[in-house]
């Protein structure tokens, strides 16, 4: 600890870039910059490996993992290959399955389900191998930045330190310590506050064949479940609902999980033999987005730039891709010994916002009853399923031939309110007979 690639103590040199946070956004930025020859200091407040929610990748993050050179490690890492995603109704009367290999380029045909403790640690170690200096249990306490660079104060093992650099990247997740310290304005994008209750289980029912690694989303009338197979044994299962909806039931989050299990055949079926491996965890999902994601010497990446509803597993993908953008912007400006121009700052903000905006449209669709009917019943007309598959796979940079189909899809979603273009969905459960008590 304390040593640097040049053998000097951490605080005696000026770093090229300081990265705050060692999750996928931080480690990716650090890895890419170190790979390009920069002196990078990464400050992580926690000790890795550590638990994190958000265990499903989507294929459009693959490019960054390949560029980082970490893909072969994932292949060998014992992660569950994910070949697609599927959506079921809670009453089992409706199902839509997507295969990434169908209609997408080969490099997007597969990705992984990842236990984040392991995945994030692997990315961090990879960044270290690329030459980044990783400092764990180091908590940023304050930051100063101007056109020339940054100075970051942090606490490490009971003492305060100061580190200087030309650049700082905020990869600190939803807490966004840099964004917060710099008082960057943010918006909640008009999305209701939600809560997730989840745990890891064994003996959850798995799909057969190549669909064994699919993520399954089960849509309830007022919420949804995720089923993410993490390895041969372990499955991550969670319930997401609005805080308002939860309050109106008058139940604790764990109780509402239990209640949903009893009430919905799709959940009951999948959880029939399930055994919980850990305590339930609870996490609030508050959507927000910073209005500005970059300044002359600072950039916000991943959740620090904005956090959106996790329904389409966009979190890690946005972290990876925004970090790639951030690293590129830094390397270009640094090569010319100057801060980011206002144009570059704007372009970075726009680039990151575009990623989240594509998903926000999808998220609003998912929670809109009529729009969701079109999603579940989408016909093969005009090659629309291919367009929707591109969205589900995380393609946020749509070619024209896909883009107009996406617009058409959303137009149908709007029309569905007045005309049943797709069959109306009923979430009604068949009358229950002979249901055994279940507790997990």
């Amino acid at each position, binding site marked *: 600890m304390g040593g640097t690639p040049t053998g000097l103590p951490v605080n005696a040199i000026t770093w090229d870039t300081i990265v705050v946070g060692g999750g996928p956004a931080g480690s990716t930025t650090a890895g890419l910059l170190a790979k390009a020859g920069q002196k990078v200091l990464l400050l992580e407040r926690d000790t890795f490996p550590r638990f994190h929610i958000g265990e499903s990748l989507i294929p459009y993050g693959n490019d960054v993992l390949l560029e980082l050179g970490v893909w072969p490690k994932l292949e060998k890492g014992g992660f569950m290959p994910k070949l697609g995603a599927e959506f*079921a*109704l809670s*009453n*089992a*009367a*409706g*199902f839509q*399955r997507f295969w990434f290999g169908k209609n997408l380029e080969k490099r997007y045909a597969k990705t992984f389900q990842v236990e984040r403790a392991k995945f994030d640690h692997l990315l961090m170690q990879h960044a270290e191998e690329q030459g980044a200096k990783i400092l764990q249990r180091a908590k940023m306490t304050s930051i100063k930045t101007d056109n020339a660079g940054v100075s970051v104060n942090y606490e490490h093992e009971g003492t305060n330190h100061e580190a200087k650099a030309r650049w700082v990247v905020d990869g600190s997740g939803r807490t966004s310590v840099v964004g917060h310290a710099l008082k960057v304005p943010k918006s909640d994008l008009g999305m209701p506050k939600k809560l997730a209750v989840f745990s890891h289980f064994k003996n959850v*029912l*798995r*799909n*057969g*064949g190549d669909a064994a690694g699919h993520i399954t989303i089960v849509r309830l009338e007022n919420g949804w479940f995720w089923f993410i197979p993490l390895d041969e044994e372990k499955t991550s299962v969670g319930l997401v609902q609005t805080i308002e909806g939860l309050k109106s039931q008058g139940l604790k989050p764990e109780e509402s999980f239990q209640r949903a299990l009893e009430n919905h*055949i*799709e959940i*009951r*079926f999948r959880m*029939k033999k399930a055994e919980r491996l850990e305590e339930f965890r609870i996490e609030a999902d508050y959507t927000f987005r910073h209005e500005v994601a970059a300044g002359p010497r600072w950039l916000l990446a991943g959740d620090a730039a904005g956090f959106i509803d996790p329904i389409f597993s966009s979190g890690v993908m946005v972290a990876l891709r925004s970090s790639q953008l951030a690293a590129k912007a830094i390397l270009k400006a640094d090569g010319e010994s100057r801060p980011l121009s206002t144009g570059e700052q704007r372009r970075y903000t726009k680039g990151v916002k575009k990623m989240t905006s594509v998903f926000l449209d999808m998220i609003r669709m998912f929670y809109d009853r009529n729009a969701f009917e079109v999603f579940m*019943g989408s*016909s*093969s*007309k005009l090659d629309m399923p291919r367009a929707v598959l591109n969205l589900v796979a995380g393609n946020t940079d749509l070619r024209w031939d896909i883009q107009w189909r996406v617009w058409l899809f959303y137009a149908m979603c709007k029309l569905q309110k007045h005309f049943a273009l797709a*069959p*109306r*969905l*009923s979430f*009604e459960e*068949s009358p*229950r*007979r*002979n*249901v055994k008590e279940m507790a997990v």
Partner: protein
Amino acid sequence: MEKISLEKIRQLLIENCMLKVAPESIGEETLLFGPDGLGLDSIDALQLTLGIESTFGAAIKDPKLAIQILRTPGTIRLWVERQQDFP
């Protein structure tokens, strides 16, 4: 794990519907109704509902649900398997 094979669902379709295509061409995600699917009609739907009840012992009692359940072979399987498990 799937307990009901695609073959079994194809069989169900052959026995209960007026198929205009070779059964082998019917996949997991083939749409059964509508012009961009197999083009089955409401008579076929009724026959299918009865067929599912006699073959698998699972009765679709709500007509609203029938159209959802009979969308593709995959959706039929999903629903039937769950009914068999929690009769």
